[in-house]
């Protein structure tokens, strides 16, 4: 009988640790009069994330095989491990990206960074959640923190508007998702993924409640990963939110949401795979096409990246719906690569930013290659990676995704995918054109000198290349995420 026991607490260790550290940070930030310094707090946050990462790894090493605790509401397996590492990495990078912004805004660093940590905690729970309640509440935890962070730039109309839109639509979608969960519960009588799966398997054909239920549930997740037509919030929020937060939304929250999506589809709804493969295929295609086409005519870099991140969600969905081994680790690999690439890109954007929203139009990149060749070179690599051109992680990731699609027989989806990624070259290279083929004007901002930020960008740059040139170890890492496939 699943009661609470000491070793269960040990198994919850990393999450508890992170939450506790978050609390400490919050109190430290609040109590220390005039607040602790930005540097100090960010360092603290960064370190606590790193420590948690180590802890998670150690824990994973020590466990053999999947372990469940607390009435199967919480599971520790390779999948959760991989995804926890990914989100923690993403949040850690976000911390590095955030320093400047907190500095300029003169915000209380304690609050901001603790919010990040709590979001991270939520994501970790998401990766491990095994029944609908814990999945949903941890999702809400992440969402709530991101609403707040999106509106952090309070003096700016845009930021506030972003928060508003994100909140209203987010609440709506989580309502829808919750409704779906309730229907699923009604249809199967269980909120626990395996329970649901077995109930569906038992019934000769799923009841209306189940059908409506899973769709509404998935819709909620598609909203979080910004798949068309549930992407509407993304462009506005990405532009309005402070850039570090944008990066967070584009990478961390998207990655975590994919974790849940895969978990639920593969372990909760394997019985309905015929249905959701078709529906996801449709969504994926629409998403890839819509995202890429809408990005073609954008001048604002953040908006452009927003649409591109929509498109990338589409690519990942292709891997998800393939429902085969390659597909699964392709998803992980791609999200990993995409994370580094996007973080690096937004880092570069921040380097060119000023207190207002400068550094966001393509013009601001004019002649960057001549002003700071290395930054330009790194940005170039990121753009190539987003397009999916070797030797970058972006290419290898896309390669596996489409390989999965081909193997699963979704050739037409793959064809559309590759053609769209060819199209995407056009808008990614608009930035490159400005960097390399236009002359600097007097209005173009000089990139900032930010050690932490620069470090983060360089890290992302290196990893992007490594992922492209020597993928083997990362593939091994991704493969630990394999779930039992139907």
């Amino acid at each position, binding site marked *: 009988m699943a009661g609470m026991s000491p070793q269960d607490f040990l198994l919850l260790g990393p999450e508890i640790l992170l939450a506790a550290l978050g609390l400490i940070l919050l109190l430290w930030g609040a109590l220390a009069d005039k607040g602790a310094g930005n540097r100090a707090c960010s360092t603290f946050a960064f370190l606590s994330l790193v420590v948690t990462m180590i802890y998670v790894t150690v824990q994973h090493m020590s466990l053999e095989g999947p372990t469940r605790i607390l009435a199967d509401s919480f599971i520790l397996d390779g999948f959760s491990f991989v995804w926890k590492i990914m989100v923690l990495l993403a949040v850690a990078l976000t911390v590095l990206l955030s320093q400047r912004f907190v500095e300029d805004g003169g915000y209380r660093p304690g609050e901001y960074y603790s919010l990040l940590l709590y979001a991270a905690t939520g994501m970790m729970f998401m990766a491990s959640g095994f029944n609908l309640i814990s999945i949903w509440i941890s999702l809400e935890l992440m969402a709530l923190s991101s609403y707040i962070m999106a509106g952090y730039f309070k003096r700016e109309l845009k930021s506030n*508007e972003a928060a*508003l839109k994100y909140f*209203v639509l987010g609440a709506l979608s989580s309502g829808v998702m919750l409704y779906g969960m309730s229907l699923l519960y009604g249809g199967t*009588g269980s909120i626990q993924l395996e329970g649901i799966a077995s109930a569906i398997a038992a019934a000769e054909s799923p009841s209306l409640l189940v059908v409506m239920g899973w769709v509404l549930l998935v819709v909620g997740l598609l909203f979080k990963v910004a798949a068309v037509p549930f992407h509407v919030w993304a462009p506005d929020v990405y532009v*309005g939110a402070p850039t570090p937060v944008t990066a967070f939304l584009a990478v961390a929250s998207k990655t975590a949401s994919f974790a849940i999506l895969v978990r639920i589809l593969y372990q909760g709804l394997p019985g309905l795979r015929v249905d959701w493969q078709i529906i996801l295929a449709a969504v994926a295609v629409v998403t890839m096409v819509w995202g890429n086409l809408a990005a073609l005519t954008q001048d604002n870099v953040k908006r452009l990246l927003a649409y591109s991140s929509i498109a990338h969600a589409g690519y990942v969905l292709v891997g998800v719906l393939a429902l085969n081994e390659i597909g699964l680790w392709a998803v992980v690999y791609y999200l990993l690569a995409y994370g580094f690439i996007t973080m690096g890109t937004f880092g570069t954007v921040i380097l060119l930013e000023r207190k207002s929203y400068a550094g966001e139009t393509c013009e601001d990149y004019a002649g960057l290659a001549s002003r700071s060749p290395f930054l330009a070179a790194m940005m170039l690599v990121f753009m190539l990676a987003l397009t999916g051109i070797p030797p970058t992680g972006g290419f290898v990731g896309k390669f596996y995704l489409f390989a999965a699609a081909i193997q699963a027989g979704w050739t037409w989806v793959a064809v559309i995918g590759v053609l769209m990624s060819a199209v995407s070259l056009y808008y990614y290279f608009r930035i490159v054109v400005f960097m390399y083929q236009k002359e600097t004007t007097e209005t173009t901002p000089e990139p900032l000198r930010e050690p932490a930020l620069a470090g983060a960008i360089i890290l992302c740059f290196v990893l992007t290349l490594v992922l492209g040139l020597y993928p083997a170890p990362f593939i091994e890492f991704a493969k630990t995420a394999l779930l039992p496939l139907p």
Partner: protein
Amino acid sequence: MTEITTNHYMVVSFLLFSIGILGVMTRRNLIVVLMSIELILNAVNINLISFSYQHSDLTGQIFAIFTICVAAGEAAVGLGILLALYRLRHSTEIDRAVELEG
């Protein structure tokens, strides 16, 4: 008609759900939009309760508790955003916030 089945509750909940969604989609006043969201969550709760009754299984009620708590949290944050909006624009009408588009 003589006996109340879970279907009755489902219908009620769905209607409530629809009304809530309609509110979100149509009202201009952010406060009312927030209220509509509460309506949606209530609809969910009705579902959960009726299903827990259907399956004679407490889980639904537990779930409902969490729903309520989340509702509270969201309301708090939502109202916070509303206050910020009001400070910036001296209005709570959402269609004033159209800086970002395209």
